[in-house]
């Protein structure tokens, strides 16, 4: 009787999917933590030069970003000389002061003296525009600046 009893035939046992939510959550958390939100859409070319004597930009202090570079492809109508981008639009040198004022207005008062301006300048840009922006920053007393660069051998910049 029992010797020839047919084995129960259920095919393969179903895969237990009870832990699938865990895996999904794990991935979710991972990406939540690891991704950095891009703050601005770049309308300019922004290949940063390299430097090796760099210091980390401290995120504890407020940072404002000023981008400079030639208009990227798709924005050729804005010409082919380096331009300033503030937030999401092109700006002129005269707008820098208003931009800094707006940035300061948006932050807590005690942090205002610690505002660092990060200059993200394309390596093909000329110093003229950078000098103008620096002069504007001096006028509004935003004196802490950071020439944001990539990490690498600086001497390769000029080749």
């Amino acid at each position, binding site marked *: 009787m029992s010797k020839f009893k047919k084995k129960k035939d259920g095919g393969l046992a179903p895969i237990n999917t009870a832990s699938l939510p865990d895996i999904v959550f794990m991935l979710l958390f*991972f990406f939540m933590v690891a991704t950095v939100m891009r703050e601005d859409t770049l309308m300019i070319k922004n290949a940063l030069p390299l430097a090796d*004597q760099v*210091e980390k930009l401290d995120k504890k202090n407020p940072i404002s970003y000023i981008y400079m570079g030639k208009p990227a492809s798709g924005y050729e109508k804005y010409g082919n000389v380096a331009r300033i981008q503030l937030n999401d639009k092109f700006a002129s040198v005269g707008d820098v002061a208003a931009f800094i004022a707006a940035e300061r207005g948006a932050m807590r008062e005690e942090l205002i003296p610690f505002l660092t301006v990060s200059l993200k300048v394309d390596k093909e840009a*000329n110093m003229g525009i950078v000098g103008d922006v620096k002069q504007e920053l*001096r006028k509004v007393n935003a004196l802490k*600046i950071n020439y944001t660069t990539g990490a690498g051998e600086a001497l390769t*910049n000029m080749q």
Partner: protein
Amino acid sequence: MAKRAAPEVNAGSMADIAFLLLIFFLVTTTIEKDSGINRKLPPMEENEEDVIIKQKNIFTVLLNKSDQLLVEDEIMEVKDLRAAAVEFLDNGGDGSCDFCQGAKDPKSSDNPDKAIISLKNDRETSYAAYITVQNELVAAYNVLRNRRALQVGSQKGFSDMDFVTMQKNYKDVRWVGNKEKLKAVIDQIKVEIPQKLSEVQ
């Protein structure tokens, strides 16, 4: 042979494995941070009093519109700039600097505190060249500060730590050590070898 159904895999510990991985990644990933060369712009002051600085204490670096470098009225390659700046800063001409190892040339800088590097660039200079020069000049200061840090640090109990490592450790929350003491050493070195980099407008 009798066909056997595959035994069910116990998935009870899957969640544990998942959490283990999650925690592993949480701990190991570092979010990429921006880094760069920090500078402080001079404040806008209507300061008409001219400070008289001896010519020998100024190290002029000129970067022209085709990215050529003129250092102390001589054409120079960028790769030689660091060594030239170190030589200038480390000269110690008046003998008041006891850690300088330079040539003590009376025609060059008196001591690192008085030595000023003046950087002038053209409007047409490329940003890449400017950053390279800035980087080399910061590197020259760091060379001297590292050397000084090794001397001072060994007396203050931070042996085998150069200046860059000291600054990194000071900012590192995981570093175990006396941060106040380290800060004092860093400040002392900063006072002894100040970064006096002036940009001509």
